[in-house]
């Protein structure tokens, strides 16, 4: 019985992606597989995945980090300013630094003052968005040509491979990753095992912030400059990618990287397929919401059913 549960958990994302593919292949008469459309799907999922590579650690410990949307905006503004005023080389270091600081603040408030991470990151989400708007009232910031050149297949796939490997290694093959997942399972166990859980959690938030920083530079590359609506709603997109991919909302041992890699294109595929079919933007959003609800419901229902002995 227990094996069935873990099997369904593993197979679920694959099943959904196959269903989506079949439905849209028929509905769009194969147009969804055109080269240019596949490239669009890739382009639209890549930033979500990069951000998710960090956020996954926060999800693993059972926490929430919804700062990513606003953080992408603030880090993007700083990166664009550094790039256009000093040198393009500084774009990534500056963006990562902003991410580290934001993640650090989130982590410290969460661990030292025991404020739930959802509340802290909600406050940061609002605060950072306001900060980005304020930064942009006095000036317009454009990205440099070097940054814009990042919006191509090669740099994106390289970044994705390198960061994906690093994040995957950290999550699956290190003590840090194991402890993160174990904290998600039962934090008390880890305290009684003599692990400094606060330090592990702090690191998880910091990595999450740093990855959002990297994602911000790629967002900048796509947009061509920083605006105050940059990254709006992005945090929800990243979370949706993870949960649609089958990562448990409460984190723990079933937090696996491949689920993120499946979940992100799944959302894009859904939107993209609906648009090609001629659905309006509003309808697309509605269907996106319904699908998320269905997927999470099925995951939870399957777990519930097997939990009652």
């Amino acid at each position, binding site marked *: 019985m*227990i094996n069935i549960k*873990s099997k369904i958990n593993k197979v679920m994302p694959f099943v959904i992606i196959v269903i989506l593919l079949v439905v849209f292949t028929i509905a769009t008469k194969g147009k969804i597989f055109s080269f240019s459309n596949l490239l669009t799907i890739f382009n639209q999922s890549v930033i979500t995945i990069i951000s998710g590579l960090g956020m996954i650690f926060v999800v693993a410990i059972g926490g929430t980090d919804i700062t990513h949307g606003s953080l992408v905006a603030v880090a993007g503004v700083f990166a664009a300013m550094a790039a256009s005023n000093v040198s393009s080389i500084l774009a990534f270091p500056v963006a990562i630094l902003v991410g580290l600081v934001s993640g650090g603040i989130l982590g410290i408030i969460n661990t030292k003052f025991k404020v739930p991470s959802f509340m802290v990151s909600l406050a940061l989400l609002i605060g950072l968005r306001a900060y980005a708007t304020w930064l942009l009232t006095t000036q317009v910031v454009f990205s440099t040509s070097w940054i814009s050149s990042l919006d191509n297949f090669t740099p994106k796939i390289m970044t994705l491979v390198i960061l994906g490997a690093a994040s995957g290694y950290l999550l699956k093959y*290190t003590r840090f*990753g194991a*402890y993160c997942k174990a904290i998600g*399972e039962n934090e008390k166990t880890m*305290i009684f095992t003599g692990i400094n859980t606060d330090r592990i959690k702090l690191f998880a938030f910091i990595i999450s912030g740093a990855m959002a920083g990297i994602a911000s530079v790629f967002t900048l590359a796509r947009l061509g400059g920083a605006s105050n609506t940059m990254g709006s709603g992005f945090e929800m997109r990243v979370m949706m990618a993870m949960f649609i991919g089958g990562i448990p909302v409460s984190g723990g041992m079933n937090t696996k990287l491949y689920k993120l890699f499946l979940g992100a294109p799944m959302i894009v595929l859904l939107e993209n397929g609906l648009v090609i079919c001629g659905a309006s933007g509003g309808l697309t959003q509605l269907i996106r919401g319904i699908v998320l609800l269905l997927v999470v419901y099925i995951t939870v229902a399957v777990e519930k059913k097997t*939990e009652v*002995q």
Partner: protein
Amino acid sequence: MQKDLLCIEQICKSFGPTKANRNVDLTVSKGEIRGLAGENGSGKSTLASIICGIQRPDSGQMFVNGEKYAPASPQEAAKYNVSMVVQELGVIPMLTGAVNMFLGKMEPFTKAGIVNLREVEHRAQEVLNHWELGKVPLNCPMGEMSIEQRKIIELGRALATDPDILVLDEITQALSHDTKQIIYTLKNRFQKEGRSMVIITHDLEEALEICETVTVLRDGEVVDTVESKKLTLDMLKQMMIGREISGGYYREDNSPDYEQDVVLNVENFTLKGGQVSDISFKLHKSEILAVCGLSDAGIHSLGSGLFGIDKRASGSVKVVQTGYVLNRPQDAIKNGGAYLSKNRDEEGLMLYATIQDNLFIPSAKECSGKFGFLSPKKINELATKTYEEFNVKATGLNQVISHLSGGNKQKINLGRWLTKDLKFIILDCPTRGVDAGVKAYIYQVILEAKEEGLAILLITDELTEALGMADRILVMKESREATILERGSDFNEHTIIEVML
């Protein structure tokens, strides 16, 4: 038929491939106190939850007072005057004791949709008084109460419906020596008033003492129902396990046997909350030092305090060999220490993770190499070794542990630490919620670890356990040390109880 209060015929219940109850027949007459005995997984708890309407049987029927009885929920069971106290705590921590006691039964106190809380509290106090349940704070949130107090509230909740049949699943486990008296008083009342009790307990001595008759279950079937007077402890064990068990539970020597090297030196140890004050002792290599005391004597706080979970006010805990002073759990772990919490499921294990994940986490450091690389191979080797060494009964390393029996969970809980190279370990009630077979096994494991030089602090609610296992016993009274007894001539229950009180 009229004399029988509860009559069960041919009850069957399975969960997937597991047959928890097979053709169970059971009759309880008025005023009878019936014990249900059996190893973990023998189907006692399932039977109890069927009686109380928590679960429905696959087939079979039940009668209460000769009337057909097929409750779909505990509420329906209550209409037939059947109620139960469950093994796992079923209370809402944020609400007060009084509210919890009448949870879901608020109608009598409600006027125009508003609950009269004072009335609820008043009624709750009446219940406590009526059944002589002792003093429990009714207006503080349950989360702040001790497990013992919570159990009493739950007992009150079951009694508030004025039941004719009361089912108690492992209630005495959570109660210390002095509070158990409540159960004895209750039992006498029930007998006198012609009500019945069905008691599930792992403590067989207690089962024989409280119950008039004991029904033994094995693999979901009723083995036999026997009068307690005609039973001895050994006979009962034999019936439960289905074969004879040789040798005793405990060690057989009658003198202390430990080395002179001091492992842990505790001086004037005092906790900030005051649960423990001014405790000093030396824990030696190869020594089992038991800690006993009444429920509020602070014995459990001593364990978590020494490990560094609770904040210390003064005094010191020193690892003699390295001269290291322990402040936080990390320090204890670094110095070859470990702590087994009394609350296994909440603070010990990751219930929804696999056996392997649970086994390797404490040894993660030993399983990792360069660049923090955590070797899946080493993890698997370590988990397999522990799994086999401790004889865990499960379908494999990838099984999620939440469905394992208490005994198997405890084997994992203890095994994941003992597989490490430890200097000392603090065990808080290691045999709690564990059946006779596993209990004997755990004692054997503890004694083996002692042989190998491990220093063990054994905190326990059971005096027999302390007497049977310890080299010395530290008796605590009102958060202070009352005395330290050494294994020898006046090492008996009588002396300890005298000091405890």
